[in-house]
């Protein structure tokens, strides 16, 4: 029995540079369309499923796409803020239940999602460890956040300051991790969920500070009388909410004027939905209501249009690469003509020679298949992150 595979393997190992180039080319031909397929399917899954499960979104007039992407997938593009009063108005119509959202801040690269506990029920979120946020300054983190940052309940997570050099800007808030969500394979895996008021704390709208009545620090107290205590700007503001200082946190002014980025509206029925949408048709209404599935359908149509173009480009590039590979192989046969003649002279048959060449092709194909398999495992493992980075 002839040792075609052994000889082919020796040849490929000896010419390892050429072999690796061939394997890389063949693998690329397969990996690019397959990876694209996985990423497009994951994009579709993440975009469509979530959009279909979100009946209506209310936000300030502007880009409907930004509103949907920020509210559903927590993208960096922050829509123009609306007021809490807007959410209260919807609730007052009794047409829909509302879940407020304030998605503006980040914590170590992950979006901080200010909302209420209703959001957990609405998205069907379950905790794999700890509890939901109960106190101001507590957060519940997604499975990917916990994994990537190595956090668990009881740990702390700092919000990211928005402007480092702005003394009046947003300072980091040290948040306590109350719980970790079970994996959802969606945007919530990458979210830091906090109570709406905690986001206002991050923004500095709610704050706690040293009790000036109890303070005896003469460098802080300017004037003290029986009814008033006047303090200067040295009065310390807390950047961490603890059991001791939680009571000192308060908001100034009307809560209705506080900011949100969107409100998820859950109409009680189709009629309620129609009525609610009708209320936001007037051009002078500062708010808009959008159906996320309509926005996402438009986005998907664009993605598929781009994908069709990409598929065509990939097809032509693959064909060109394949032809180049055939050419390389044909040229290498010509270069190896003397070797082939010698092997024939020694007594090798044409079929045995063909077996050896076929074995070379088969080994290159198998190595490429392994490489493609590994690449697909990696792409599948990180497809959510890739989709978030490239699409969302």
């Amino acid at each position, binding site marked *: *029995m*002839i*040792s075609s595979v*052994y*000889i082919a393997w*020796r*040849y490929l*190992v*000896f*010419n390892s540079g050429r072999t690796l180039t061939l394997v890389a080319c063949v693998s690329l031909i397969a990996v690019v369309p397959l990876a694209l397929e996985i990423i497009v399917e994951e994009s579709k899954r993440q975009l469509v499923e979530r959009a279909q499960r979100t009946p209506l979104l209310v936000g300030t007039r502007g880009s409907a796409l930004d509103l949907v992407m920020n509210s559903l997938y927590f993208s960096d593009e922050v829509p123009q803020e609306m007021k809490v009063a807007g959410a209260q108005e919807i609730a007052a119509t009794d047409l829909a239940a509302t879940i407020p959202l304030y998605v503006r801040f980040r914590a170590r690269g992950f979006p901080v999602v200010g909302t209420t506990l209703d959001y957990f029920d609405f998205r069907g979120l379950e905790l794999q460890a700890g509890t939901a946020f109960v106190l101001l300054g507590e957060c519940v983190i997604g499975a990917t956040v916990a994994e990537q940052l190595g956090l668990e309940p009881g740990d702390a997570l700092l919000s990211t300051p928005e402007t480092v050099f702005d003394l009046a800007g947003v300072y980091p808030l040290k948040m306590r991790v109350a719980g970790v969500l079970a994996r959802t394979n969606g945007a919530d895996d990458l979210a830091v969920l906090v109570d709406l008021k905690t986001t206002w704390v991050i923004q500095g709208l709610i704050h706690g500070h040293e009790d000036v009545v109890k303070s005896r620090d003469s460098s802080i107290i300017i004037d003290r009388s029986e009814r008033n205590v006047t303090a200067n700007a040295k009065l310390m503001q807390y950047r961490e909410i603890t059991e001791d200082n939680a009571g000192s946190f308060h908001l100034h002014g009307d809560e209705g004027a506080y900011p949100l980025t969107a409100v998820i509206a859950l109409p009680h029925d189709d009629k309620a939905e129609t009525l609610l949408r009708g209320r936001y048709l007037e051009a002078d209404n500062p708010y808009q209501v959008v159906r996320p599935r309509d926005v996402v359908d438009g986005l998907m149509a664009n993605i598929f249009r781009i994908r069709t173009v990409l598929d065509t480009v990939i097809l032509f590039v693959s064909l060109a690469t394949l032809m180049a590979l055939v050419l390389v192989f044909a040229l290498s046969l010509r270069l190896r003509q*003397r*070797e082939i003649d*010698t*092997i*024939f*002279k*020694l*007594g*090798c*048959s044409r079929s*045995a*020679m063909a077996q*050896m060449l076929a074995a070379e092709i088969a080994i290159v194909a198998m190595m490429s298949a392994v490489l493609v398999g590994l690449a697909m495992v990696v792409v599948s493992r990180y497809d959510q992150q890739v989709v978030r980075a490239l699409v969302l």
Partner: protein
Amino acid sequence: MIAIEALRFAYRQGTFRLHIPALTVPEGQKLAVIGPSGSGKTTLLNLIAGIQPPDSGMIDVAGTPVHALDDARRRTFRITRVGFVFQDFELLDYLNVLDNILHPYRVSGALRLDAEVRARAVELAGQMGIAGRLRHHAGELSQGEKQRAAICRALLPRPQLILADEATGNLDPDNKLHILDLLFRAVDEHGATLLAVTHDHELLPRFDRVVDFEAFRGEGTT
């Protein structure tokens, strides 16, 4: 051992014609074939080895009518009973010396590669003085070492006939004599017959017999 009668061969394209009315080589003889370039020396080796079939005539090697064999049988005959030594050694760069020596066993189903064959390959390499180079690739060897490895490859299947085509043509004078001595000794030890094409007239006295292709010119070689 070799009996040739009324051998005629012509390439389909070109004007080359080979005609050998008769040639006999007794068993164990070391025969040198000389002649000008293009006179058909290499073609004769190819015809005897069954690489090309003759147009007409008879070639008998140790009782095997090579001229009458089909392609498959000619290949089996060649790999089992003929050892080829080439001018450019024709070793495969991507194989080490041991794999090059074992190569005929790996490319043909007619030979069976087993532990005994491997042991004999190592022993042959020892006899040729290249035992320490068995794990080196062909490209790492000197010219003389390459030809020794090529001789080992030719001798390993214990062929009855060794065909050497300018086997010393690429070697320096010292190596030339040394390699020829090694080849002769190996041929004697294996009881084989040697038919060697050479241009080197200095080596001719070492052969048992010399056939000059000029002699065939008048008889039809053109």
